[in-house]
């Protein structure tokens, strides 16, 4: 009986799909495909082809094959700056995962359990989202200034002179400060995703665990958290992509060199310097570097996504 009900629905669906002509499908898909092609595929293919030539200013001079890749990977100091920048990106990713996403999850759980003021706090935590990272960087560089900044002024007023540091100038504090400022801006993102995911988990599951004698922590960790794994996966991949495409905030906080001693130098800044502060062959070298960055980000994102999906299935 059930099968009989299902069958006509299937055939009706198939019938409808058959009636929509390929022309109409193409008409509706074409604008998106053209935009995607123009702004994603064409620049990518162009960058790849540019990277295969040696350039003289804006003129391709000769076919260089993988010469630009070799140049970028072997020329001093780029050959030392690339691994250093990659390491900074990795630290930035790890720090962002540990602070932004963990605190974001904590805030989401708090708001989920205490609905009073939920909308207000949702808005408050998400507000920095609306500000351009360049402006955020500029404002924080003013706040953190050791000469005129209010943060060091407050610390000194409170008698905590030793805590007043040249935050963005000291190579030991620059990267942690960058991670914190970035988390300040984007913490609303993971919080909203986790909040939505928490809302989708039936309360009965945690109640059942409580009835079985599980503590609140145990109920969260063993019952609710595994069901949040799809959200964790999405956020991890998005965070990875965001962290490896980092540019505007770090540029505003530390300039194109990534601050004194290059403590905040990341791949995005390295690309910028190669492309816009480079020499005669800057187009060729920066295109090669861009392709390498793309391969790393794309490859790791795909691997990360697959790994997390497998974990989800296991949990």
């Amino acid at each position, binding site marked *: 009986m059930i099968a009989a009900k299902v069958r006509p629905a299937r055939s009706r669906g198939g019938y409808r799909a058959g009636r929509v002509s390929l022309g109409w499908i193409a008409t509706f898909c074409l604008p998106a495909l053209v935009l995607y092609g123009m702004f994603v595929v064409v620049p990518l293919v162009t960058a790849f082809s540019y990277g295969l030539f040696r350039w003289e200013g*804006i003129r391709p001079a000769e076919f260089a094959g993988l010469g630009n890749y070799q140049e970028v990977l072997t020329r001093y100091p780029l050959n030392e700056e690339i691994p250093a920048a990659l390491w900074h990106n990795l630290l930035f990713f790890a720090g962002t995962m540990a602070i932004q996403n963990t605190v974001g999850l904590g805030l989401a759980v708090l708001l989920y359990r205490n609905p009073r003021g939920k909308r207000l706090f949702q808005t408050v935590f998400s507000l920095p989202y609306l500000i351009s990272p360049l402006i955020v960087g500029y404002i924080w560089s003013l706040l953190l*200034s050791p000469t005129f900044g209010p943060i060091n002024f407050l610390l000194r007023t409170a008698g905590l002179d030793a805590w007043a540091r040249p935050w963005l100038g000291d190579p030991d504090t620059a990267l942690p400060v960058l991670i914190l400022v970035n988390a300040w801006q984007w913490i609303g993102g993971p919080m909203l995703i986790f909040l939505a995911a928490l809302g989708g988990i039936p309360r009965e599951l945690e109640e059942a665990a409580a009835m079985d004698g599980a503590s609140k922590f145990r109920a969260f960790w063993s019952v609710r958290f595994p069901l949040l794994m799809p959200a964790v996966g999405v956020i991890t991949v998005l965070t990875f992509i965001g962290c490896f495409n980092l540019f505007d905030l770090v540029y505003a906080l530390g300039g194109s060199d990534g601050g*004194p001693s290059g403590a905040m130098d990341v791949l995005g800044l390295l690309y910028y310097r190669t492309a816009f502060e480079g020499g005669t062959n800057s187009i060729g070298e920066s295109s090669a570097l861009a392709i390498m960055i793309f391969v790393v980000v794309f490859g790791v994102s795909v691997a990360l996504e697959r790994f997390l999906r497998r974990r989800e299935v296991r949990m």
Partner: protein
Amino acid sequence: MSRTRRGLFAAIGALAMTLSACAPSAPEDQAGPGAASGPITLDVWGWRQEDAAAYQKIFKIYEDAHPGVKVKYVPYKADEYDTILRTGLSDANGPDVAQLRSYGLLQPLVAAKSLVPLDDQVKELSGFPEPVLDGARGESDKRVYGVPFAIQSLHVIYNKKLFAKHGVNPPKTWDEMTAAFDKLAAADLTPLATTITDTWMLPIQQEIFGATSYGGYDYLEKMRTGAAKFTDRPWVESLTKWKSTSKYWPRQFEGVSYVDAQALFTSEQAAMFPGGIWELAVFGKSNPDLELGIFNVPPPEGAATAKTLVPGYVDGSFGVAAKSPHQSQAMDLVRWMASPEFGQAFSTELRQISAVPGVTPQDPLLAQALAAYQADPSPYVTYAYFSGGTPTAWDLASEALSTFVTGRSGAEDAAKHIQQGVDQWFKPTQ
């Protein structure tokens, strides 16, 4: 025609219309044979948005003397200008005359053959000193591609009122200088408003305090022939001497930005600012009550020269676009830019030192700076003379000096970083 095809044609047609609407149109003065003839407009592209009004005033002099030619200064944002110019020079829709960066930053445009060499065309250039023309020269062919417009000299700019209040005079010796710094520090002032986070200022500060240690042009000549290196003792010593002044820098100088340093000086919390002569106009606008003076750093004990050297360099030049449809009129304009009439107007309107020989600035401080630079000039080595290849000495120095002043490396390591980078492309002259 089937529905499918009709749908596809409709979509392609709509897309074609959209794209054609987005396509660039021809500029007004190239609208084809049918276009009305009128005055020719020469577009002069530049990176000085803040100088646009002054340039229009300067070009009015030229327009009055050349009826039928209009000159329009088109400024772009300074940090986007190089990219915009590279693209703009690739076709006839770009500038007729372009403001060009000097030394290494000029080379991509020379390599792309985007500019017309001026040596044979602008005879007035023969009156310019060779070091000034170096700023507008192609590294590969040694030809001159622009008429230099400004010389920037580097000094210690000081607050006259604060100096007088604390009984300090511009120093004649290194010891006098450090004694003056001590006196100002004891009065709870920051003696030197320096920046570290804006690393491009570090090679400037190093030249101001270190030029006499390595010896200026004499040492440069040895470097160019391969007889001396960044890693040799005189140049390394210039780093050490410069850093020895760090006890007079702002508290927690590692985190002080360029803007912070400027604010420290204009708010009279700092007595001196080591920087370029261009700062005079900025400081004058920020605090019109400031009474400014300049001096240069006297040689320390063991310096390579007994003279007080004044570092300086060519800030930029004006060149003619190879694809300009009005090349002959553009050439006339740059010829005028090499004349004393332009130089004087430039110096007066923009409060800068003109690169045109014989032009004396009306501003007494600029005149003092120019006279001092002409008497004992010193090169801006990393920016001007080792910037023709990749990586440039200037980029390497900005990185290395920031590591050095934040205590992450020694002077020798910093010098080695620069030398190692430059060695990859620099060929000594025979």
